C-alpha cells in the first residue's frame, strides 16, 4: 500500500540566497520538456 512516486532527473538552473539560512533552487528538466503537473495544479 506504499505510495508510488515517479522519480525523474532535473538540473539546477538557479540558486539564490534568500536569507542567511534559506536558499531558493530552480529546477528544470534536462531535455527542456515541461515538468509533470502537480496535484496542487488541479484546483
Amino acid at each position, binding site marked *: 500500500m*506504499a505510495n508510488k*512516486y515517479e*522519480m525523474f*532527473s532535473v538540473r*539546477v538552473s538557479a540558486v539564490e540566497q534568500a*536569507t542567511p539560512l*534559506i536558499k531558493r533552487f530552480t529546477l528544470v528538466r534536462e531535455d527542456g520538456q515541461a515538468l509533470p*503537473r502537480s496535484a496542487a495544479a488541479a484546483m
Partner: protein
Amino acid sequence: MIVQDPAGSFSNAYSLMSDPRDLSHYQIGVRLEEQSRGGSAFMHGQVEVGTRLTISTPNNLFALDPGAGRHVLIAGGIGITPFLAQLHDLEGGATPYELHYAFRSPEHGAFQAELEQGPHAGHVRFYIDSLGRKLDLAALFAGLAADAHVYVCGPKPLIDAVIEGAKAAGIADERVHWEQFAAAPAEGAAFTVVLARSGRELRVEEGMTILQAIENVKAAKVECLCREGVCGTCETAILEGEAEHFDQYLSDAEKAAQQSLMLCVSRARTARLVIDL
C-alpha cells in the same frame, strides 16, 4: 516533492513554492537546518547551477479547502514556502485571502520583498519578532468570519499555538489545517520492535527511529523516501501493540485505527510493537 542527490545518499521532502501551473520549472526553498541529517547541508553546501538531482512529482499535501469563504494563511519562517505556491492559485480568485507571515528578524524574512511588491501586497502582513511586532492569534481568531478556514505552516510551537488558539476561539477542527516544517524530533522512551516475518526483535533506543534500528543491523529492507513522515513509502502494518504516530501522512482517523505506522518517525506506545515486516 522528494529531492535526492544522484548517488541516493540524501532524500528529503520539500514544498513546491513556484506557480503549480508553470511547468517550465519548479522552485523549492531550503532552510539550512542546524540539526540536519545531511539533506539541507548537502543542498546548501554542494548544490550549484548545473547540479543534477532526482526528484518526484510534487504531491499536494496541504490543499486549500474549496468550501472556505475566506482563506487565512499563517506562516512562520521557512513555512512560507507552501503558501507561495498557493498564492498563485489564490491570485485573482473569488475567495478572499490573507497571509500572516511571522519571522525572527528582518534578515530572516525570506521573499518579503516579492510579497510586498507583488499582486499579494494588500493581502500580506508581516510580524517581526526582533522588532516586537508579534502576531496576536487571539485577536485574529476573535475577528474570524464563520466560514473562514485557517492554514498554518511553520515550526511546531507556532502550529501548536494556532491549534490551541483556534480551539479556544471555538473554531471547528475541520477549519484548521496545518503542515509542520522542520520535522519535530520524535521523542519517547526505548521499546522493542518485533519483525513478524523473521521473528527478529530489535531494541529502539531513545533518540533512535525504528527505521534506523532496522537499518543498523540490516534486519529488513525498507524503502523510505522522505525519512520524515511525509511521503508514506515506509508505511507498515501493525500486528500487535500501538503506535505513537508522529507522521503527517495518515489522517487522524487512520492514526486512531492503529492499523499501520511510518517507520521513519513513529514510535511505540506499548513496550512491544509487532510489525508486518
